[in-house]
């Protein structure tokens, strides 16, 4: 498929079930805003179990990127529940599938924050790209705030979960953890947000 002949159609996703669920999420793409205005003590462990859509904000471009948040034991990390996040970005598209979670810590002053996440790649049928780009950021304040930690990783393998640690960040008060997939599909699980 060539960029000269752009398509807005997503390739077939991990399964029809996932695709259907992703379509539901797409219906509210970019509009799902979780706003837990209450203070949260660190560390936070988020395996996308329960109701992840109430905690995570989804930002997609309908038709070319999608996000599935929810239960699917086929893709979840073994031993950590059934919740998982699938971030899918059409390999030729200049857009990301992004999730973000704003944290309102129980202390207002600056503090060193450490974020870790498990990542695995999913390859769609016929995909030629050598990797999926996974971008991990921390923003000061809410999801449009200044980027204070920025890191990208090319995830190649589909076989193993990779543990990635964000670059160190030192936000003051509320901050937002952002994870995005670009030029491919990434499976995300077990986000750990702590003091480091």
């Amino acid at each position: 498929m060539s960029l000269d002949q752009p398509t807005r159609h997503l390739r077939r996703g991990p399964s029809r079930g996932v695709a259907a669920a992703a379509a539901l999420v797409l219906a509210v793409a970019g509009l799902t805003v979780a706003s837990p205005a209450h203070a949260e003590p660190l560390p936070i462990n988020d395996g996308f179990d329960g109701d992840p859509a109430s905690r995570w904000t989804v930002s997609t471009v309908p038709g070319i990127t999608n996000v599935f948040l929810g239960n699917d034991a086929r893709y979840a990390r073994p031993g950590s529940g059934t919740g998982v996040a699938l971030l899918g970005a059409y390999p030729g598209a200049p857009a990301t599938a992004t999730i973000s979670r704003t944290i309102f810590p129980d202390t207002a002053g600056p503090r060193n924050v450490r974020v870790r996440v498990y990542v695995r790649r999913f390859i769609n049928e016929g995909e030629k790209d050598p990797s999926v780009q996974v971008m991990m950021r921390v923003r000061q304040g809410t999801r449009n705030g200044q980027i204070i930690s920025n890191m990208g990783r090319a995830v190649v393998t589909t076989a193993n979960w990779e543990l990635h640690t964000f670059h160190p960040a030192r936000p003051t008060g509320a901050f937002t953890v952002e994870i995005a997939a670009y030029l491919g599909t990434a499976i995300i699980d077990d986000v750990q947000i702590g003091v480091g």
Partner: protein
Amino acid sequence: MFRRLGTGRARAAIAAAAALALVGGGGYAAGPASAATSVVDGFEGNPYTNWSTRDTPGDSFVWLGDHTQSRTGINSGHFYAPFDVPARAYRPVVVDRPSPNPSWCYAEAWLKRAPVWHNNPGTEKKPRVSLVIRNGLVVVGGTTYTLENFEYRRAPFASFRYRQPDLTVDISVTNGMAYVDDVTVWCVQEIG
């Protein structure tokens, strides 16, 4: 090789060379730049501290950060705009005059075309990279390159007489995917 669409003047000058290092950051407004006699910016550290980015999700995309395609260090600028909606990044640069005498300034960057893996062979587009340096809204120099090679090549894009310290470097990509690294602005004193 690049195909250079615009030409910057090259002037014989020498003396106190200054190397401006643009070290940069994104998505919104960047912070104030401090004065230097030269600036070299390889997008190292947190580039979004200095750089602002403008893209249109679905039509263009900018990523400033670590990438295996960087020329030096670990970071570079990644720009992807398959059509005519530009992927942009810009940052302020403050350059001191090297001396009270007339001075001449130069700007360059290193550019590389990126493979778009899902394309069929022979259909890849050649990205257009526009490099501009301006004072406010007044363009003081700039060049547009069409990239043909998949290796980094030096791309001088401006030479201009020093007039004032406050400048902005503006990178804009259309028609493909490109990497940018090591943006440099420097001023030298002309030989009298």
